[in-house]
């Protein structure tokens, strides 16, 4: 009996240890390691070249025009892509929340992009948007309209990337809004209807305010995920043309793993991490349950 009691004391540790140890080693230590590596230079090249440089890498983040440019491009990109995806996802959710025959089939079709990787999506849309061969230009030109450069011109490339990732992003986030809409009690909607409110009025005055917690959650999560966008840039544009799609994660990859300067790459992601933590902190405050 006493043996068993002693054993029971260790039960929580036994159940928790694998998860907590793995989270600390592979999720939290890299965060600390990132800040530490940011204080050294050229740590991926020859062992002797590792040198303590203090905050020089952080200063370089703000002074190097290409690095700082990637932060600015990422800000512009974020300010467009996230509200756009959240808005379209809300509309899509409202659309598939209609109780009409066959809606389950449409919901299933709209789930398909969610299953497909960003990688394949980028390759496929990169081909579809090709100025010479691409499917989209084939359709445009067959309709008699002028050929568009899409990913190959600085004025259209970032917009094309935004379109490509929204093909996955909009259906994905609409799942959260659909669940939110389905959670609104039918009594509320019924009384709005009796009061003579139309669909648009009901959507704006009743549904949106009730969804505000989910909207805040999705907006923050989408922003944070899009900060780390890498695959389409790596696969299609490599940051170009003329750095127009040079987003910050791609710059961190290029500096750290192509040029081998882990120091500056770590400084880049440490700055980005601080921004992300600030976003998440705001989310926690906004979403704190009210008593």
């Amino acid at each position, binding site marked *: 009996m006493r043996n068993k009691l002693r054993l029971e004391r260790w*039960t*929580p540790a*036994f*159940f928790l240890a*694998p*998860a*907590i140890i*793995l*989270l600390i080693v*592979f*999720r*939290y230590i*890299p*965060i600390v*390691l990132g800040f530490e*590596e940011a204080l050294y230079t050229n740590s991926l090249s020859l062992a002797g070249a590792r040198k303590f440089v203090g905050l020089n890498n952080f200063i370089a983040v703000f002074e190097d025009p290409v690095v700082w440019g990637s932060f600015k491009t990422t800000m512009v990109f974020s300010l467009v892509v996230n509200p756009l995806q959240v808005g379209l996802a809300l509309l899509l959710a409202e*659309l598939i929340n*209609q109780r009409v025959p066959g*809606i389950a089939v*449409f*919901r299933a*079709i709209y*789930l*398909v992009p969610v*299953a*497909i*990787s960003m*990688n*394949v999506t980028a*390759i*496929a849309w990169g081909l*579809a948007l090709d100025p010479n061969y691409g*499917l989209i*230009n*084939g359709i445009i*030109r067959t309709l008699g309209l002028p050929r568009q450069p899409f990913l190959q011109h600085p004025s259209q490339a970032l917009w094309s990337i935004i379109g490509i990732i929204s*093909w996955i992003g909009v259906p994905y986030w609409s*799942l*959260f809004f659909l*669940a*939110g809409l389905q*959670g609104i009690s039918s009594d509320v909607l019924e009384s709005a209807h009796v009061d003579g409110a139309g669909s648009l009025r009901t959507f704006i005055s009743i549904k949106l305010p009730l969804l505000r917690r*989910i909207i805040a*959650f*999705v907006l923050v*999560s989408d922003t*944070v995920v899009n*900060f780390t966008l*890498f*695959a389409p840039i790596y*696969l299609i544009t490599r940051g170009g043309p003329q750095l127009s799609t040079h987003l910050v*994660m791609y710059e961190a990859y290029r500096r750290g*793993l192509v040029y081998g300067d*882990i120091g500056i*790459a770590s400084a880049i992601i440490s700055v*980005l*991490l601080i921004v992300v*933590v600030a976003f*998440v902190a705001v*989310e926690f405050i906004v979403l704190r349950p009210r008593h």
Partner: protein
Amino acid sequence: MNRDHTTLLRLRKARRYILLYALLIAIAIAIILPISWIVASSFSTRETVWKNVLPFSWRAFFPADFTLDGYQAIFEKDFGRALLNTFFLGAVTVVFGIAVGAMSGFAFARLKFRAKNFLFALVIFSFMIPGDLTIIPSFVLVRDLGWLGTWQGLIVPGLANGIIIFLFRQFFAEIPQDLIDAPRVDGATWLQVFIRIILPISKPALISAGVILFLGQWNNFFWPLLVAPDPELRVVQVAVSIIGIEQQVHLWEQMFASSTLAMLVPVLLILPFQRYYVGGILGSGLKG
């Protein structure tokens, strides 16, 4: 008068339906057309692959000159190895990821221990910060462990997943107390309760976690690209990207064939399990 009114209402309703279905179908087309174009093109030869694009013809969406050249070529380049590697990686991640996630989820839902809130905050915070954000220091860590180009380098860092832990905690918290109390009074240990009572009634949570973990590994690209790009350990997404970009000659039919196979598996997995998948990812956002 009254009849006119009903007719008007019926007309309005019909107009609303037509508009609604037009919109639903237009969006469905925007999703299906690019996919069917990729699949159709994967059965073309390099010479005919662009034939129906300009001038554009509907045949671009249906296999026209049916050939398996693209598929034959990618399998000669060990694409089959990449498929097998990814299935293996997915299966191992599902088994161990579920074990790690379910055990800790059970502890958070049912056991009493010190620092519970703090440890749970660690879990929540870990899935608010995307793993790709810290991918470069993670790479440094795995390199220093000597795990570059190894299975453990691909598998171990992804085993503890905050969303999965959260999912299990939510599910286990709903289980009626009586189901646990009875065997406990009879002297069963917590491990016995967990294995004999809890797990057998947790099929929905186990399926959700399995689908999410498998899809996550199947579609993972950035991490395997850094840790294990070599042919022996190459996974599907890396293989697709190499066929897609690292060639001097554009191997169109091979790009389409490899993309088709890379999307086929997750689509076939998500459709039958959509309720479990959607339920699983929603838990993280709606109850937090």
